[in-house]
């Protein structure tokens, strides 16, 4: 029986893996937000009772979105290899993981965003319509701005989900905390690394969740945000 890995080594493992995880999740969240919010807006605009109802477009968009969400991430990870190579010039490593992470998260974000936008009261939207506002103006100033707290929370949920997905990054050499726990901890019977990583993941997700909750509240001008 080997002696346990020294704590200083565990910590340097964790630091490196955390950097990889935050890099993969951070970049893919930004991409998924930039592309997923428009998808969600489009879904909501074309929905029944939306600003530009269009059953055909909505149905196609819904279908594609749900298809994307139903794909297990590990399958996406390997299936997108050639696409990834085309975009980032390689198919292994942390950067390569960003492509499938972002692709997987776009429909996820799209659905969350549509749900959030659909919660804006119809009287508020109609009031904006009667002021002569354009559709773009209503999307920006009413739908998105009124939903900002919920949208920030939705992005928080996405980040946490992506941290989960990124645990599979090891399959294509992406590294990160999940990979550390599986490869160094589980497969090499190193309980200290395994449980340290688990504990650190719990702390990390809690902190991130807390941060998003605070940001959502800070953006909210409703009752509890007074002064």
């Amino acid at each position, binding site marked *: 029986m080997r002696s346990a890995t020294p704590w200083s080594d565990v910590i340097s493992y964790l630091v490196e893996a955390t950097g990889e995880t935050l890099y993969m999740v951070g970049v893919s969240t930004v991409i998924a937000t930039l592309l997923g919010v428009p998808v969600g807006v489009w879904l909501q605009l074309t929905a029944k009772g939306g600003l530009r109802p269009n059953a055909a477009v909505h149905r196609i968009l819904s279908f594609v979105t749900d298809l994307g969400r139903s794909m297990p991430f590990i399958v996406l990870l390997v299936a997108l290899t050639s696409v990834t190579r085309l975009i980032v010039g390689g198919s292994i490593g942390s950067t390569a993981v960003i492509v499938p992470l972002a692709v997987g998260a776009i429909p996820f974000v799209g659905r969350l965003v549509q749900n959030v936008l659909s919660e804006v009261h119809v009287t508020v939207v109609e009031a904006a319509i*009667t002021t002569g506002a354009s559709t773009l103006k209503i999307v920006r*100033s009413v739908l998105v*701005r009124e939903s900002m707290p919920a949208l920030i929370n939705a992005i928080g949920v996405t980040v946490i989900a992506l941290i989960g997905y990124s645990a599979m990054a090891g399959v294509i050499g992406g590294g990160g905390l999940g990979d550390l726990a599986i490869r160094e901890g589980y497969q090499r019977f190193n309980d200290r690394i395994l449980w340290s990583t688990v504990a650190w993941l719990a702390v990390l997700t809690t902190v991130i969740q807390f941060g998003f909750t605070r940001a959502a509240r800070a953006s909210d001008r409703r009752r509890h945000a007074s002064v």
Partner: protein
Amino acid sequence: MITVENLTKTFQGVSALNGVTLDVEAGTVLGVVGPSGAGKSTLARCVALLERPDSGAIRVDGTDITSLDGSALRAARRQIGVVPQGDSLLRQRTAAGNIALPLESAGVPGPQRRTRVGELLDLVGLTDKAAAYPDQLSGGQRQRIAVARALAANPSVLLADEPTSALDPETTGSVLTVLDRARAELGVTVLVVTHDMGVVRKICDDVAVLEQGKVVEHGKVLDLVNNPISRTSSALLPAVDLNPINESAYDRVADVVLVGFAAVGALLPEAAHRFGVELNIVGGGLTRLGETPVARFRLGLNGERSDSALEWIGEAGGAVQRSLKGPQGVAA
């Protein structure tokens, strides 16, 4: 200023508007009243350009606005300020920000926008609440901000859909005062859709009664109260039937409607004096329509010249609506 011509609208085979025709003169307030399901909301939504009628026209300054699209439609919407039913303010914007919304849509530049918002806050008496968010305002204050928002882009017509339905009587007064001031100070033509006859009593010049998608009564409030069979008079005037009286104590019993300070104050004593009759008010009461005092009294008269006295009251400007005891021909 705004005319509605033969408007029809059907929802899945159910007719909501069945040929509605209305005319609101510039600078006046028209109240559209009627029971639930009469088509009031549909009419309001058509005028707000949120719903397209199946047929008919809505003209603002002579131009039909029902068949517009795109930017012409948005421009038409700015001509009609709308106070929607229910809470309609953006909760993530301040009161001032909410009022600015139509100005942003109209492309009014920042400095002018701020000036205009200031004027409107002043008009609705909420200057000190400029930076408050809707959740920090009372229901009546929110509704006044909604009125200010509706007026921001200088519309020629203001449409208010049930502006007082969620408010208590006291706040209702403050919202109605603001609507009245909009007409008085800005010369806006106001169309107010309501189930509350109190709104008609307080601010309306004209009234239209909607029933089953049709206008069944339309005219000046002060004219309609003089018409004993109008729905408006029975809804607006004080009831006279509360205490049954002993009719045998009188030679004549009749209901009269008196409009205006002079009539209410002086007509009855003068009639009694002039014809030497005993004239008692045995029922009814006094109310106000806008600034005008209006009374409906049940009179009991004793004396030989009672009929002449009633006839004189009719000629002198009162309306004898109903003779309960005595020759029916007296009714003017």
